[in-house]
């Protein structure tokens, strides 16, 4: 079975001034588990590029004035509308109109996501044992191509999903992270197998990264040693569901040890 990483709620961000171009905001420190000291070898791998959280599209809904004005970053601050109402003493229906006008881009993004989740091109990269099952998930018996998850692209520039299949060693971590950074957005990462989820049966080894979420963000974990091809396909369907539910919000990319729920 596959377990999708539940998306944590976004921390409240300061309201963005109207009209100012949207700039990348630095997210708070990634979640660190007790086992992950800053002096950990992989700790240095958490780079600025990985720590950046792409800013989600926010639908300002000024029809409803929130209790906390700084919630729903962006949108029209409640105080100003209050002043304006004092000034003109009538009820203008700004809110409904502006809400309707600003909701359109979100819908477009939703349609784009529907398109994206129907053509996920995996990167043709297998690390170890799980690669065999990854290949047999694409072959005649259980055919990944039915969901548009074919062909495997050989070049990271054209891939959407990085299926990390197999044990990640410290020597391979650098090339793998470079592959991940070469893939264009939007991109998703599926951790296939116990070794990639948590180090698996080689957790004690001196040369193995204990879970790829120490070096790169992960969207879907598919445990199993190795998971059956059906398991991988189920995980990819979960990824489709994830993309659909996020409604055009970029997934929050966090690097750091995370425990998938239910594993």
């Amino acid at each position, binding site marked *: 079975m596959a377990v999708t990483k539940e998306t944590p709620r976004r921390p409240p961000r300061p309201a963005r001034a109207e009209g100012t171009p949207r700039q990348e905001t630095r997210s708070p420190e990634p979640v660190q588990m007790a086992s992950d000291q800053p*002096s*950990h*070898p992989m700790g240095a791998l958490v780079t600025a590029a990985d720590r950046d959280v792409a800013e989600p599209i926010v639908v300002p809904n000024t029809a409803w004035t929130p209790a906390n004005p700084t919630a729903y970053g962006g949108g029209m601050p409640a105080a100003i509308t209050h002043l304006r109402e004092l000034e003109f003493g009538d009820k203008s229906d700004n809110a409904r109109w502006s809400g309707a006008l600003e909701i359109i881009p979100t819908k477009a993004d939703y349609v784009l996501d529907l398109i994206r989740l129907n053509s996920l091109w995996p990167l043709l990269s297998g690390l170890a044992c799980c690669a065999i099952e990854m290949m047999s998930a694409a072959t005649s018996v259980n055919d990944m191509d039915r969901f548009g998850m074919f062909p495997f692209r050989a070049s990271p520039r054209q891939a959407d999903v990085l299926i990390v299949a197999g044990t990640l060693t*410290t*020597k391979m971590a650098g090339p793998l992270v470079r592959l991940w950074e070469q893939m264009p957005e939007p991109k998703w990462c599926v951790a296939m197998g116990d070794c990639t989820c948590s180090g698996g049966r080689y*957790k*004690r*080894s*001196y*040369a193995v990264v204990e879970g790829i979420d120490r070096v790169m963000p992960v969207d879907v974990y598919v445990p199993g040693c190795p998971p059956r091809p059906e398991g991988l396909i189920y995980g990819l369907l979960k990824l489709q569901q994830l993309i659909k539910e996020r409604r055009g919000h970029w997934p929050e990319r966090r690097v750091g040890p995370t425990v998938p729920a239910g594993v």
Partner: protein
Amino acid sequence: MLAPVAGRQDTTEIRVSPAEVTDVMRTLHDDGAFRFRVLADLCGVDTGEVMQVVYHLWSENSPDWLRVIVDGLPRDDPRVPSMTFMWKGAEWAERETYDMFGITFEGNRDLRRIYMPPDYTSFPLRKDFYLADDAARSPGEGFRHMEQVRPPAAADRPLLTRRSKVQ
């Protein structure tokens, strides 16, 4: 010969010293009586006190494996003549043994680390190299917490080393 020829099950075992291993192996390989053409395996062993290099040979003349043990290599600077002049395929095996034990094979023209990254300073299969779960006993600390910071020659002897009762 450091010890008499011993045989157990289907294996015959001889022990030689690093000085004479070259002649012994050449004789075994070329002499018509032996004709040990197939080098079945080459590996290193850390017994806790000394290093060993173990060769396994196969010949169509005998039904047994022949095990040649080069015994008594010092742990701080083990050196063995390389076998690449006779079996070129021994090159990678010697590289692996160097990588894992730090045993230097004189005459191997490509003796570098093959598994671990080149800036790796310790030799994982030595008995004084501990895994993560007994890293507390490890003399090494620091950047890679599983690895010694100093090369093992200079490393002080750990508190407890598991020694073999096999000689």
